[in-house]
């Protein structure tokens, strides 16, 4: 995964002609739509998983148009596998295995400060904001499926780097999510974590 990120970053940095060509278009539109894909690794004991998201952005007419407000809807569904343990299980019975999947749909509202073309054609940016995290934990044990859901407020922080490409901009970014969750199967934990190297493209509308 790290190799993929390095390649993507190199590709973005070398996309100079297209970036120049897209400069007027990107500067005239205040709204963008950006699909993104990445790899999310929770700080809880969940496996990593592919992260998919769609971002809607708006450049506010303040601070020399460097402040943007974004609303992102993200999705990922990491899993954990294990064996049931405890004194209340019949000692003579074979081990009982389980799979727990925690689906997360996140609504992330962020204020993002963009350092327009601060590094050549690249635009670094950073932001933060509240997030509404909708979780559904599904466990599979002995052929039976049970699930529970919960919604909690959290927050997230974002850093990224955008390169003008075509009418928009390709970007590479990382997230940190604080997503509290308290369900029977998971316990009271933060299932947030790090989105390492999401790739996307901001299409100026």
């Amino acid at each position, binding site marked *: 995964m790290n190799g993929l990120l390095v390649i993507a970053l190199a590709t973005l940095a070398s996309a100079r002609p297209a970036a120049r060509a897209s400069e007027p278009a990107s500067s005239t539109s205040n709204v963008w739509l950006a699909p993104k894909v990445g790899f999310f690794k929770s700080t809880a004991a969940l496996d990593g998983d592919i992260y998919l998201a769609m971002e809607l952005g708006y450049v506010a007419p303040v601070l020399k148009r460097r402040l943007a407000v974004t609303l992102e809807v993200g999705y990922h569904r990491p899993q954990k596998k294990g064996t049931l343990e405890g004194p209340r299980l019949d000692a003579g019975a074979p081990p009982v295995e389980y799979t727990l999947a925690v689906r997360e749909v996140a609504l992330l509202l962020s204020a993002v400060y963009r350092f327009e073309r601060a590094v050549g054609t690249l635009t670094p940016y950073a932001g933060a904001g509240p997030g509404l995290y909708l979780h559904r934990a599904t466990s599979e044990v002995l052929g039976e499926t049970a699930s529970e859901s919960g*919604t909690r407020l959290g927050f997230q922080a974002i850093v990224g780097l955008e390169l003008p490409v075509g009418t928009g901009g390709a970007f590479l970014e990382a997230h940190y999510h604080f997503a509290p969750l308290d369900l029977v199967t998971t316990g009271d934990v933060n299932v947030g974590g790090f989105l390492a190297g999401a790739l996307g493209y901001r299409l100026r509308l």
Partner: protein
Amino acid sequence: MRRSALSATLFALSACSGDTEGPVPAVERVLNPRTPEAQVTRLCNAQGVFSNGALRGWTLTLKGKRFSPVPGDVLTDSPSTELPEVTLRGPTTYTLPRDHVSFVDPETLKVHVPTSSTQPAVELTPGSYAVEVTNPLGGTGTLENALLVGPPATLTRVVPPPGGFRYGEAATLVVEGADFQPGTLPTLVLTRPPSDGGLPASEPLSTIAVDSPTRIEAQTRPFAIEGHYDLVISLPEGCQTRLEGAVDIAYPRLSALPPSPLTRQGARRGAPDVEPIAPEPRAP
């Protein structure tokens, strides 16, 4: 105003109560392992069996379908297993503590029901109970009239046979008391403490009939050993009750034979002579 509305909306969303969805269990039978073939499953609300050095009450086996454990707190440092919850609903409603329920397989649960003798004590009011099983993330299944809870029997007295005990003949005893169960066969045993450090003696009785909740007819063995006995009654579901000094088994003595003259030739008539015999003195 807008800010407060937004705050209220976010708070309402964040406080959304979660929902759960999972398999709905079905309870098909409740068994007392002591009486697995009984038509009516009974449970005594006192005493119990010892397990790991503590009185745990009585064990019941629940048979059914879709008893579904789920992993619990598995993303924390103290993972556990969440098992179905078992509740007894009747004259008293009692939800068993989590550590009193054990999972065997999706069709079998074992539960330890505490009694008035356990710590803490739980005395279920006698009567008919429904047994309810709720999966941790699922629905609830109930079996109505699954269990009949009763008290231990009370012993008042034992009426010996009218003509007394006769060696070599079984004697019929009438046991009087309360909370006997007509239609069942309790175990009746006469016991007495060990004599001279030996093993305690016991005389099993055979139950003829439980005539009513207050009267049982039982028989002794033909050659029961004489003695002063306690009576112990054990109900099929497990509870025992003792009545101390319940029965004296004693057989009639032969009356003293009158000394009769010997008719053998050479014998003397009249009372026999008694010759004192003493040990010979020894020289010092």
